[in-house]
């Protein structure tokens, strides 16, 4: 603790107007010192990609940003193993998308399915789900602490602004999101669309065909 007394801290936080002098102070600072020179890529990381530790269906522990997102083209969706609704058709769609993307999946393209029910989806349940759908390497089914999985869901925008609808997890299953982290290009599409169309939309955030990246990674799908 610093010299700032806890009691006065509580008082300061409890009374909103006390923060106003801070704002006024900020306003007097010149714009150059008021704002930070932070890259947009870094701001995206800060805003959307918390470095949470997740566990994959293979039992590996992975840091969300460092190990899973950084420098990659990533595809996100939400599911849970015992889902009887549209999870299975979407997973089947993504199996076909994985096939279309070929051996780049696991190399520079990665697919991540996050459980909406971390309490029941342990590694074994995820492993079973992955095997049942015959997914290939480069596509991970992931669980973590309930708070972390909730954080991830919120950060990645698998939400509904109506609190009642937001509690119904079936509302978070239909959308696939994707992005190219170093290129800072992102998008989303419905998971119930055709696999061909899903793969095409993902290709829009891919590295340019003649780029050094593509030369090093074996070209397009």
């Amino acid at each position: 603790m610093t010299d700032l007394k806890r009691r006065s801290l509580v008082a300061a936080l409890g009374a909103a107007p006390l923060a106003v002098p801070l704002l006024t102070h900020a306003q007097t600072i010149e714009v150059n010192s008021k704002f930070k020179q932070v890259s947009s890529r870094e701001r995206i990381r800060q805003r959307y990609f918390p470095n949470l530790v997740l566990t994959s269906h293979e039992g590996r522990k992975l840091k969300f940003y460092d190990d899973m997102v950084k420098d990659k083209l990533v595809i996100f969706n939400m599911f849970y193993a015992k889902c009887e609704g549209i999870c299975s058709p979407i997973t089947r769609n993504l199996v076909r998308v994985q096939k279309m993307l070929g051996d780049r999946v696991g190399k520079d393209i990665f697919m991540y399915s996050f459980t909406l029910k971390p309490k029941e989806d342990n590694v074994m349940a995820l492993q079973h789900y992955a095997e049942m759908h015959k997914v290939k390497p480069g596509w991970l089914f992931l669980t973590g602490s309930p708070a972390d999985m909730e954080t991830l869901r919120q950060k990645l925008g698998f939400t509904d602004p109506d609190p009642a609808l937001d509690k119904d997890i079936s509302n978070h299953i239909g959308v696939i999101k994707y992005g190219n982290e170093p290129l800072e290009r992102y998008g989303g599409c419905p998971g119930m669309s055709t696999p061909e169309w899903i793969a095409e939309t993902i290709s829009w955030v891919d590295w340019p065909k003649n780029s050094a990246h593509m030369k090093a990674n074996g070209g397009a799908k």
Partner: protein
Amino acid sequence: MAYISKRNRRQEKERQIAAHNRRELIAAGFKRRDLLKLGLLTSAGMLIPKKGLSAHPINSAGMVFDDPVSPPTTPFQENMPRLTVAQPVAALNPAPTIAPNTAAGEGRTVAHQAFAQFPPQRFYELIQQQGTVSVALPNELPPQTIWGFNGITPGPLFVEHYGVLGSPGNGSILVRQRNNLPSNNGGFGLPSVTTHLHNGHTPLESDGFPCFFFAQGQFYDHHYPNVLAGVNSTHPGIGDIKEAMSTLWYHDHRIDHTAENTYKGLAGAYVLFNEFDTGNENTGFRLPSFGDGQNPLTSFDIYMVFNDKLFDEQTGLLAFDLFNTDGILGDKFLVNGKINPVLHVSPRRYRFRWLNTGPSRFYQMFVLGPNNTTKSFWQISTDGNLLEKPVQVTSARFAVAERVDVIVDFTGQVGKTFYLENRLEQDDGRGPTGNVFGAGQGTKILKIVVDGPAVADNSIDPATIPANQAVYFYGFPNTTDAPRITRTFRFERGNGQWQVNGKLANCNDIRFAIKRNTVEKWIFQNNSGGWQHPIHMHFEEFQTLTINGNPPSSTGLITRGRKDVFRLEHNMEAQVYFRFRDFIGKFPLHCHNVVHEDHAMMVLGQINDVGDNITQP
């Protein structure tokens, strides 16, 4: 501090305070466990603003949710810019061709269908490129990197004229769009584009179909004949004057990426004059003169482009919510590219053309006068299509892409100050709550000061139009021809996916065909009590027949008239009437909350000479 609604203002203040508190706590060396011990991270109440320190669970990375809020800015410091008028070029190199000039790098894939009939009389070239703009005082926000037509936003204002009898193609122009956007997008934006002229009677290969996008380094020639609907069908010669349009705009329409690209700046304005709506207040309908669009002593017809944006708290730079699928609201309100600017006017009548480019907000605009009085004004159009006559109103509501032309009379108001005030409450992307704030309680967007010099006013005073005169402008086309087919379009959400008739948009799926030169009746349905959708149809305007079984309104919030965006509100069903004439090709029907649009709330169709009988495309 942004001028936003009282409720939003409070929320914004709370958020800013929360953000500053967080920084103070970090600076003071408080650790997370200290805050947990203090209970600061679990109690909401007055201690912690709604989405500040602790409204959400703490995760293992030690992060808390940080609902973004723009840095403070001081409103009403800078003048509202008047839009730069687009200038034609002498010639284009290479010269435009009817067939796509693929060898020279044209991204177009369909030949021009009306080029020979209406050869372009003037040529323009717009370069879509990165630019740097100032949106606020330089000590409050840093220079902003945007994508713009010719590097500016809003893009250049096209001032065009319809052809005349005997020479219907006199107004024909060709606009070459070049994609010189950079690969480095600064955090959002896809450098792949297609430009829609909203809502020209344009051959559809030039309309800006969402799937006709073209790549960096390519160009695309858009042929805009600027002809009246009916010119090749019901009204040979010049077309049906009752189909004249006046206030249009153009914007990026890249499938799935329209929201970020328009938000980044790819939007501009377009006006059309003719022998009645002349731009000269001494002739025709005598609407306030356009002049050169710049000189305040001669230009009284002013286009105002509204949008709301968010700027990053740390960097002060324009920020886009990448993973939002609901709709994006900004807390800074821009008019013609400036946050909360000031317009100086003379004591006379003005024509204001209001356009909302979104991304997701609905406005209900009032003119706020001294002492929280509400000044009435004259609404003359819906979506750029003149009404039968000016209608006196106290407000106009417009969602994304809707346009409203109004006449505001500042005669006798010397020295007074007015504000354009949005009083419609909206808290998220779902649409407005329905609550309309009281006078002075809404968001002041533009300050208008009547301190300009006295100048002559030869424009029509709408108050002098006799009450028993039903039609002052063109009147509306009839809605009595029998429709060939009635089709239903249900706009909905399922499992978080936007859908139309339970189906998802896909460029490879053209879901229905309209027979050229026929009439259709469409039914728009929204079964949701939570969401509202501004539904836009390309190429043709509709007239509303019924809303929830009732006729549209000619007064108040006007819904009668020709429109190209239907505001589909909660639990609403509407019947609308279309005529599809003259040209063929592919088009979209879509929600113009551009975030919904980018997540498949769209149906693709085509006009051909066969048509189909699909009633729920």
